[in-house]
């Protein structure tokens, strides 16, 4: 900073001005250097013009012609797909032990799934539980999927098995129609409540089950809520008519207010008729009248 603030010494010239002066003198002495600069300028201008022309052309090419169909949207790269696992050692052992039981076997992301013939499910489960190499001694889960478009067998029962000593997993799938499927409670007693849950929510019958009845819903409930033909919304049925309390005028008004504020999520006018609450001779409190 101190150097910058110093005034230039008398008689001294800055370096830049001296260089410029030298260049001017050289140009005056040699006129060809002048033409070289002009050439450079011309080249720069030409290059700029070329870039501008290329940009215009790119924009025209990118803009679709009026009425032209849209370019197809590129699909995302597809992910991994299940592969055939019929050569898997466990599948081969299972084929040897229970003839005709395995329909197909697939492996997806290291997870083995075996589709089993419905009539052989108990034998297959027993064989897997008693397997010498990998004993699947734990029924991790038993669940169901409803495919309403599969007319012959709309339900798929899924058995997730786990081998505690070998830390291995396998998934069994069985296609089931209205006749149901044999219970595997004889192999894993833990299947008892899981099968009751599937029966309750999907209506699949498990033959030879020791105590097949609803587990989550009331015994006189109608329908099976996890089926695709069962609407998710609240629907009045005989059970709710018989068991749910009825509404007073005050409660009805409160309900309307809650609806107006978006707080009421259970009821809409068409779904739930408002009824008198105290049927058994009880009266509404005076302040509510």
């Amino acid at each position, binding site marked *: 900073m101190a150097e910058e603030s110093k005034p230039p010494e008398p008689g001294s010239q800055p370096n830049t001005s001296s260089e410029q002066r030298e260049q001017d003198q050289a140009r005056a002495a040699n006129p060809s250097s002048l033409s070289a600069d002009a050439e450079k300028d011309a080249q720069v201008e030409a290059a700029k013009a070329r870039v501008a022309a290329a940009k215009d052309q790119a924009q025209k090419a990118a803009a679709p012609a009026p009425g032209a169909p849209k370019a197809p949207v590129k699909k995302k790269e597809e992910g991994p797909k299940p592969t055939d696992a019929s050569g898997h050692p466990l599948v081969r052992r299972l084929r040897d032990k229970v003839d005709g039981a395995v329909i197909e076997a697939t492996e997806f992301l290291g997870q083995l799934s075996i589709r089993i013939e419905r009539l052989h499910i108990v034998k297959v489960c027993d064989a897997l539980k008693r397997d010498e190499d990998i004993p699947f001694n734990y029924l991790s889960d038993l669940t169901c999927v409803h495919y*309403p478009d599969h007319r012959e067998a709309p339900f798929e029962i899924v058995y997730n098995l786990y081998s505690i000593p070998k830390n291995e997993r396998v998934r069994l799938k069985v296609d089931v129609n209205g006749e149901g499927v044999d219970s595997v409670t004889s192999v894993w007693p833990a299947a008892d409540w899981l099968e009751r849950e599937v029966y309750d929510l999907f209506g699949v019958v498990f033959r030879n089950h020791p105590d097949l009845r609803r587990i989550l819903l009331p015994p006189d409930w109608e329908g099976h809520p996890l089926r*695709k*033909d*069962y*609407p*998710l*919304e609240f*629907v009045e049925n005989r059970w709710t008519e018989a068991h749910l309390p009825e509404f007073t005028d005050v409660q009805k008004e409160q309900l309307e207010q809650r609806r107006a504020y978006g707080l009421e*999520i259970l009821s*809409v006018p*068409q*779904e739930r008729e408002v009824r008198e609450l105290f049927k058994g001779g009880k009266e509404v409190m005076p302040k509510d009248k």
Partner: protein
Amino acid sequence: MSPKEIAAHYEAKVFDSPEAATTAGFALTETHTPRNVWNKASAAQSLLLKLRDKKEKGEAKEIGLVIEPWSVTGCYVPNEVATNS
């Protein structure tokens, strides 16, 4: 899937009001008033599965769905041959 996609899957016609369906010759069935989009799709599928069964039994010639902002209604064209017999 959205109610429209479900209707397309079951080859059902889509209407935006019950009047449009009735003027097109469709008879209305039950109405569901779901409170969110998932329940709306579920209601649409439930209605269409019932209508599909009706069509397979020969009671309906054509099936449809009335999709309104806060409700879904099933509709179908009765099969005159089945109803007359």
